[in-house]
């Protein structure tokens, strides 16, 4: 059998793991070479108590809780003293006696717990950790019933702000160094460190630098005591009063598995779940702390209808009748903009609603700068893929080289960043980034910078051809749509070199929306609209006679039609400021012949709508997301409450009924079943195109911009403590550019585009490309709204208050810089 499997051409020949066999408490067990005794013991069902040990952190051996006796090291000789099992590698023939069989180990462990408790306040009744506390639990399971300590306890004033979000109660700390090791090793943000010595040792922050990390919430979760708490959850609930639900994070396309804890019909906190293939045991602060935005004062709870120019509450009947009348009047002059944040099932509902009910292919989920080139790329390289065909987190960990194109993982897909950093630390992964400067994230990945003026990524990629091979992975971000020619070049490079390619969007619903058929040229499963067989396929499954045969309009074209008063729109969860031209989107929404908005908040779009339908929050939903790997992540209903509004699917279903058509499902489960039934497209896939015009070279300064993870996006609304940890908005330029335009570090500068200007403090970045000005996309002011240009656009820059006239040409000035 095994011989056959080797000859099977599909079977990958994986090197067999080298095993070592040891005996723990008389039970023989084989574990992979390099396994620590503490984890080998878990395999025989022995849980050795521990505090500092964490399987994803490098061992430190600090707490000494996990002492075991070692009668035989595997060489016939025993260790004279008990050993910490978290730093002891399993050896062949080793014999280990844990607390199960060794009085020495038991005494050592009990003694250690007694030590840990002498300076611990034992304020469990008022501690957030009480009820889920490893110290409390292990004191009960492995400690003395009572302390023999009668002396004075060490005390500290409490609490200390490690950051606006993370608070430290020093007297509870057992100094296990999990938080400091996480920050140094996993996230690469060594802004907290142990300071002082002896019993006064404590976790400290630098006087000048706050604990400035996108991953700070993890230190709270891995703290084995209640020393680290979050400002937002502190004193909100007891763990045993919470109801936990596994969910998939809705903030980005990483697909993090989370645990959502609620009480009194409110989510109180979210924790990273345990998903070894995806987020391991981590998540980012946005995913952890940003979850109240749907429950603010602007939540829509009843349907609204525009009457005499005013939106007024209306009954569902009235709202549905009004919407149907408006949509019927529009005929086929209608478009659907579902946005990129829906579950696969809901996106599928919009796709079917557009095509089978409204009879149009005008649907585009991309509520962001996009392009035809991108639509073609998505059809060719992304749509209709499965997890097996895609690049995965595991692939990133094993890769030799990863090239980042228009993609800043720390800001735009933080869990991808963590996995890349792990690969960089553990497997010597080489990271190359095509970017205007080495960002904080790139530095933490040890990335080689290929300096690039935004818009010219394609040329930079040309230069990398001979540095990429079959063991490389190219990760391209959604911003590539703003750089003409980049996506086609990436696809060509991948097929020429054999490198793997993955497109990583920001929003959680993008991949799902593509698969559900929310692009004007793609039906569900990546079926091209232009392909008659594909249309027949889908029409048959949906039980309709036919589907519209011409490719629909993309979002920008729809909005242009709407601006001319020639189109009605159905929207869900979009924001004008996310689009390439926010002002134009607002005007289009104002001018649209009819506007139906399915919303949970009274957003800018909802305020302009003719009919607003309130829809359920994600936490009142079931369904799934597809992450960038095309991996399915389940969204479970967290809050089951009678008076939640209807889901998008139910509203679409009601609209369909009233239009005299069939949506085919009312709920997520049935929608998912319908999509699954369609299955994947087995016909011809779209071919790669190579017709894109690259950007012409431009004179003067060029804008670079991307979104910071914690910015003014609507999902962060209401999170005061979280937003206080956001990176401030700065304007980045190279030293030469700073000199040319008279800018100085820390001083205000004005950057101007066609639509206006904005003022920001200057940060001079040493390795930045000259003649490039970086500003955050949506921190303080949305950059496209303020300047009227995006990445790659022409801007001028000058010291604030100075005349913004263009200085001498760089050729005469550059030498002096």
């Amino acid at each position, binding site marked *: 059998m095994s011989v056959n499997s080797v000859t099977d051409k599909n079977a990958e020949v994986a090197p067999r793991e080298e095993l070592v066999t040891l005996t723990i408490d008389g039970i023989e067990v084989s574990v992979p070479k390099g396994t620590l005794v503490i984890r080998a013991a878990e395999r025989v069902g022995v849980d050795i108590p521990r505090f500092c040990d964490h399987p994803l952190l490098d061992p430190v051996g*600090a707490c*000494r809780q996990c002492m075991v006796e070692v009668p035989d090291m595997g060489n016939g000789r025993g260790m004279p003293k008990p050993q910490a099992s978290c730093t002891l590698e399993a050896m062949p023939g080793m014999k280990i006696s844990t607390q199960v069989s060794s009085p020495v180990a038991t*005494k*050592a462990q009990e003694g250690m717990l007694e030590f840990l408790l*002498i300076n611990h306040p034992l304020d469990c009744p008022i501690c957030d950790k009480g009820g889920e506390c490893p110290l409390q639990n292990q004191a009960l399971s492995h400690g003395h019933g009572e302390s023999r300590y009668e*002396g004075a306890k060490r005390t500290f004033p409490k609490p200390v702000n490690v950051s606006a979000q993370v608070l430290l109660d020093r007297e509870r700390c057992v*100094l296990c160094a999990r938080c400091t090791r996480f920050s140094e090793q996993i996230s690469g943000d060594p802004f907290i460190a*142990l300071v002082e*010595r002896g019993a006064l040792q404590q976790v400290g922050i630098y006087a000048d630098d706050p604990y400035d990390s996108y991953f700070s919430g993890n230190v709270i979760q891995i703290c084995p005591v209640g020393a680290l708490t979050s400002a937002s959850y502190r004193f909100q609930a007891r763990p045993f009063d919470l109801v936990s639900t596994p969910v998939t994070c809705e903030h980005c396309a990483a697909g993090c598995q989370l645990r959502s804890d609620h009480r009194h019909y409110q989510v109180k906190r979210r924790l990273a779940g345990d998903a070894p293939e995806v987020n391991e045991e981590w998540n980012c602060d946005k995913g952890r702390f940003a979850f109240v935005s749907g429950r603010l004062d602007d939540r829509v709870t009843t349907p609204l209808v525009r009457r005499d120019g005013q939106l007024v509450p209306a009954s569902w009947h009235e709202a549905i009748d009004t919407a149907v009348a408006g949509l019927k009047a529009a005929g086929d002059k209608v478009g659907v903009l579902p946005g990129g944040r829906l579950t696969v099932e809901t996106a599928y509902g919009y796709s079917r609603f557009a095509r089978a009910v409204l009879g149009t292919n005008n649907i585009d989920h991309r509520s962001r700068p996009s392009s035809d080139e991108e639509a073609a790329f998505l059809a060719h390289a992304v749509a209709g893929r499965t997890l097996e065909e895609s690049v995965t987190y595991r692939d990133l960990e094993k890769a030799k080289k990863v090239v980042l194109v228009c993609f800043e993982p720390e800001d735009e897909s933080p869990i991808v960043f963590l996995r890349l950093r792990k690969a960089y630390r553990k497997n010597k992964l080489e990271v190359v980034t095509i970017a205007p400067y080495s960002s904080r994230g790139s530095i933490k990945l040890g990335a080689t910078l290929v300096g690039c003026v935004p818009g010219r990524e394609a040329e930079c990629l040309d230069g990398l051809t001979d540095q990429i091979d079959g063991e490389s992975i190219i990760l391209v971000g959604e911003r590539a749509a703003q750089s003409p020619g980049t996506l086609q070049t990436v696809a060509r490079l991948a097929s020429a070199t054999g490198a793997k390619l993955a497109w990583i969007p920001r929003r959680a619903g993008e991949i799902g929306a593509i698969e559900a058929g929310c692009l004007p040229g793609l039906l569900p499963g990546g079926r091209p609209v232009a392909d008659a067989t594909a249309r027949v396929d889908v029409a048959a499954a949906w039980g309709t006679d036919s589907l519209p045969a011409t490719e629909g309009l993309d979002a920008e074209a729809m909005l242009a039609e709407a601006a001319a008063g020639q189109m009605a729109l159905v929207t869900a969860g979009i924001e004008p400021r996310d689009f390439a031209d926010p002002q134009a989107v607002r005007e289009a929404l104002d001018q649209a012949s009819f506007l139906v908005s399915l919303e949970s908040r009274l957003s800018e779009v909802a305020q302009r709508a003719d009919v607003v339908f309130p829809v359920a929050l994600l936490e009142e939903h079931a369904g799934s997301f597809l992450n960038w790997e095309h991996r399915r992540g389940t969204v479970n209903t967290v809050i089951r409450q009678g008076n939640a509004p209807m889901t998008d699917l139910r509203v679409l279903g009601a609209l369909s009924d009233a239009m005299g058509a069939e949506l085919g499902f009312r709920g997520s489960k049935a929608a998912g079943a319908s999509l699954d039934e369609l299955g994947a497209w087995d016909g011809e896939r779209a071919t790669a195109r190579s017709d894109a015009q690259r950007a012409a070279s431009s004179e003067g300064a060029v804008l670079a911009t991307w979104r910071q993870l914690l910015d003014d996006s609507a999902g962060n609304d209401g999170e005061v403590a979280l937003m206080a940890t956001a990176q401030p908005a700065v304007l980045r330029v190279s030293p030469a550019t700073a000199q040319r335009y008279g800018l100085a570090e820390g001083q205000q500068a004005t950057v101007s585009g066609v639509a206006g200007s904005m003022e920001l403090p200057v940060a001079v970045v040493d390795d930045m490309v000259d003649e490039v000005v970086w500003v955050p996309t949506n921190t303080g002011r949305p950059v496209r709204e303020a300047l009227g240009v995006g990445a790659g656009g022409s801007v001028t820059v000058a010291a604030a208050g100075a005349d913004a006239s263009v200085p001498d040409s760089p050729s005469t000035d550059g030498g002096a810089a």
Partner: protein
Amino acid sequence: MTDTLTPVLTANWGDDKAWKLSNYERRGGYKALRKALEMQPADLVTWVKDANLRGRGGAGFPTGMKWSFLPKDNPNPVYLVVNADESEPGTCKDIPLMMASPHTLVEGVIISAFACNSHHAFIYCRGEVLHVIRRLQQAVREAYSAGYAGKNILGTGYDLEITVHAGAGAYICGEETALLDSLEGRRGQPRLRPPFPAVAGLYASPTVINNVESIASVPGIIANGKDWFAGMGTEKSKGHGIFSLSGHVKTPGQFEAPLGITLRELIDLGGGMREGHELKFFTPGGSSTPILTAEHLDVPLDFEGMAEAGSMLGTRALQIFDETTSVVRTTLRWVEFYKHESCGKCTPCREGTWWLVQTLRNFEAGKASPGDIEKLLDVSDNIGGKSFCALADGAVAAVTSAVKFFRDEFEAGCTTPAWELFPYEKSALFADSELGAHA
């Protein structure tokens, strides 16, 4: 052989300005270096191995063997680090050596670095002894000027940089891996081993760490021969060593003698106990070595003799206490030191020393409860052998040995303050003199 002093390292201490290069050379200094540079590094290692020089920092690991553990195929540079962070209560041999004759150390450093194929040596000196650091810096400067250090030493093509580094006042930095962290600019805390320093030490490169006295002994071994060195001492503890006599003896000071000399002999050399008093207890090698009593006066002061007696040779820091001393008070002072110096990394040391101090204060104040002795011993047992490094073991050694020999004093600590049983002024050095009487 063990009845006479053997001044080797201390031979020139009485010379006028012994720390000057010219004076050191007048006595034959740097001749060993010239001889060593003509030998093969590997032969030097064997030479030191054959001489049976054991580490003088306390543990007694054979120095030549330590050198031979350096990997041959590691592409990183090899570093020699001299541990001159002498900070243990009672220990006072390296600092006077570097103060009086820094060139003895510097010559040893150059020979040892050559033997280990190292081109950069560091002397990590305790930060509080600024005058010693200046002497060392001056000596290194002189060695550079004379062509003994730097590029192309004595025309042999061998290059060596010597860096004198001042610590910042932490006992834990005498622990070799904490020393390396400190030398790299980090907070001094012991590192997890493996990897051992020989494989990945300073800047993750192969590193040899030796005590000052070990390295300073090397020139003599090269100059006078391995047999000369191995001819001194006892069967397994060869050579000469500095014995630092302090406390209640008439003439405290440094006595360089073959290993294996007894305390009785040393006290004689020191002029006997303080007039009218008798020995109560002593530490053989600093405060981290279990105390011994008058019954151990004739035990040879070598690694084996001390181990047999239940203690350790340590740094040969013989602190002598006469019958006026409260063992409870002495133990408390030592444990207070360890509590203060605990780096905080591991639980038993950080919390255990905190607890021991509070318990011992009760004993000193006569406020201990019955059962506290057992608790003291049990807490000590929970610390000893469980901590990350040996610092806490030193604290425990003081406690357990004190209870072992003087349990009655701890029992008295349940009722009577130590200062009543042993009026503290009586153990002051001048208690019996005119000065003391009027104080």
